């Protein structure tokens, strides 16, 4: 900790804050603090603006005016290149590589993989969490502890052996092969949902039992509907994580048939045309690939922001 202590806390609250009678504190310190905060937000968002500005420019004008703060040689050709609405020759003329990009196919692949992973992980983790929180069985504690220990296996270590396994299962270059390892288990999801299930009152459950409901029925008709909120939060986070995944899909997919957007973006980048990178096209592709998650974020912002914390700590 001592290593961190002398942090350069430019909270920039100079002793100006010394207790003055004017307790409303529109002090200089506060103003400076807001300025720092505003700067941080600008730095955070500026790259997004630059993506849009570049995507709406044409490559030749980008060369001539690299620092103009608005789109130069305004055109939406770059988006046409990304969506494959431009002929190869026209694309090359505009500074593209002229190679075909199956954007819609990659989009579909990304959606399929993210949906498979999210649906699988939610259902199977919820089932396990139910068994670990609401069912009575002998080895519940130890088995749960073992599952939790799975959190400590760094992802990087499972990649290579999992690749070998997926190859043995003949699932290389398939969407299922990409989704499978993440579909069945997430120790974190189990832990997260178990925490929530334990807060649901047992009385409702007892009442349902007396009314003759089965445990399975209770899970599907009582516990799951009561857990819509945490399930949504978890689902959105899982979807985003899966969508943004790069390393694993890169290993497993070889051809367009199973290529997801992140990998396609990297491939697009590596197809640099003779004339230099197709920056306008690349930024258009970047924007289009990131947009679905940004929209999702816009819709679920409050939920996502609030979910970040130490759910299990306090």
């Amino acid at each position, binding site marked *: *900790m001592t290593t961190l202590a002398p942090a*350069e*806390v430019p*909270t920039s*609250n100079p*002793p100006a804050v010394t*207790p003055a009678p004017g307790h409303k504190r529109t002090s200089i310190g506060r103003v400076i*603090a*807001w300025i720092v*905060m505003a700067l*941080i*937000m600008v730095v*955070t968002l500026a*790259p997004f603006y630059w*993506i849009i500005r*570049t995507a709406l420019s044409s490559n030749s004008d980008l060369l001539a005016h*690299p*620092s103009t703060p608005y789109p130069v040689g305004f055109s939406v050709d770059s988006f046409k290149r990304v969506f494959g609405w431009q002929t190869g020759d026209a694309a090359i003329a505009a500074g593209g590589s002229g190679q075909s990009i199956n954007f819609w196919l990659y989009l579909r692949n990304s959606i399929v993989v993210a949906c498979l992973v999210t649906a699988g992980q939610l259902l199977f983790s919820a*089932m*396990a969490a139910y*068994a670990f929180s609401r*069912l009575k*069985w002998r080895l519940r*504690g130890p088995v749960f502890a073992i*599952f939790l220990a799975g959190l400590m296996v*760094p992802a990087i*270590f499972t990649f*290579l*052996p*999992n690749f070998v*396994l997926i190859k043995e299962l003949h699932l290389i270059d398939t969407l299922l092969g990409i989704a499978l*390892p993440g579909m*069945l*288990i997430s120790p*974190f999801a189990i832990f997260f949902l178990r925490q929530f299930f*334990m807060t649901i009152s*047992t009385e409702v459950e*007892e009442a349902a*039992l007396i009314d003759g409901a089965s*445990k399975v029925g209770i899970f599907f008709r009582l516990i799951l509907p009561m857990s819509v909120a945490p399930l949504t939060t978890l689902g959105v986070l899982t979807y*985003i994580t899966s*969508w*943004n995944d*790069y*390393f694993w899909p890169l*290993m497993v997919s070889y051809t367009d048939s199973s290529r997801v957007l*992140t990998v396609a*973006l*990297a491939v697009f980048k590596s197809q640099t045309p003779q004339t230099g990178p197709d920056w306008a096209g*690349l*930024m258009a592709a970047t924007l289009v690939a990131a947009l679905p998650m*940004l929209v999702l*974020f816009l819709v679920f*912002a409050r939920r996502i922001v609030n979910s*970040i*914390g*130490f*759910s*299990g*700590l306090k």
Partner: protein
Amino acid sequence: MASHVVSPAGRPTDTQTRTPSANRRRRDDTRLALIFIAPAAVGFLVFLIWPLIRGIYLSFTSFNLLTPAQFNGLDNYRRMLLDPVFWNALKVTVEYVIINIGVQTIVALVIAVLMQRLTRSMVVRGIILTPYLVSNVVAALVGLWILDTSLGIGNQLLKLIGIGPIGFFSDGPWVIPTIALVNVWRYVGYTSLLIFAGLQTIPGELYEAAKVDGSSEVQMFFRITMPLLRPILALVLIISIIGSFQVFDTVSVTTAGGPVNASRVLQFYIYDMAFGRFQFGYASALAVALLIVLVIVSFIQYRLTRAGQTDLA
């Protein structure tokens, strides 16, 4: 993802007053429980435990994916000890982690404290988190464009003040700091929200009392915020350092390990060894080395941070 600390919660589900019929149902739960955990258990065994065992086994073999793995004892490890590229990769990775985590933690702390003292606005928190929503690949590509040597706006701005151009992604000494900072951009908001959540656990009365006593903001930061935040900060550090050691995406998209080996981080070297040269055995040994590094790092951090736990009763 968010952090996980096991709370020994286990609430008492046993209510002594139970009808005999309910009791019978309870006893039946074992079978049902097995069915309910079956998919997760299969996933756990097949995609977590089995690869762990197999990865360690493969590290003692020569394996090119096409013919069966040949056991070759400690050959891979002997080779690793003598492999200058490995040692360089380890050095580069550590350098990356230090820059990445150092800058990220300080900036995140600043953002979190500023937010705590200034605003609880959801919009501000949302903006801060935005980069976290895009993939590493997107972050890498934007970084590549903004910091491009000839056309990037970064170098254009530097030119205005008479510096550069700097080959952020092409000049040896610059690549690792650059990649580290690109990832700081993507993750700092997330980290700051984690710390912010931790700050919420500090009672506001402490600050009010301190203010009455005439403490300045700086004093309050060092006397109240830092000591009480320590356990949470430690947890954030452990999580982010472990993640940081596994850097790959950004390197793969921007420099592919270059120039020469300047940004050949461990994870990229492993990938290259496996999929570029099909030496899965050696790649597995390298992965074991990274695993060991991670275990050591976690252990040290755990010991260091346990020492001064919870000041907040």
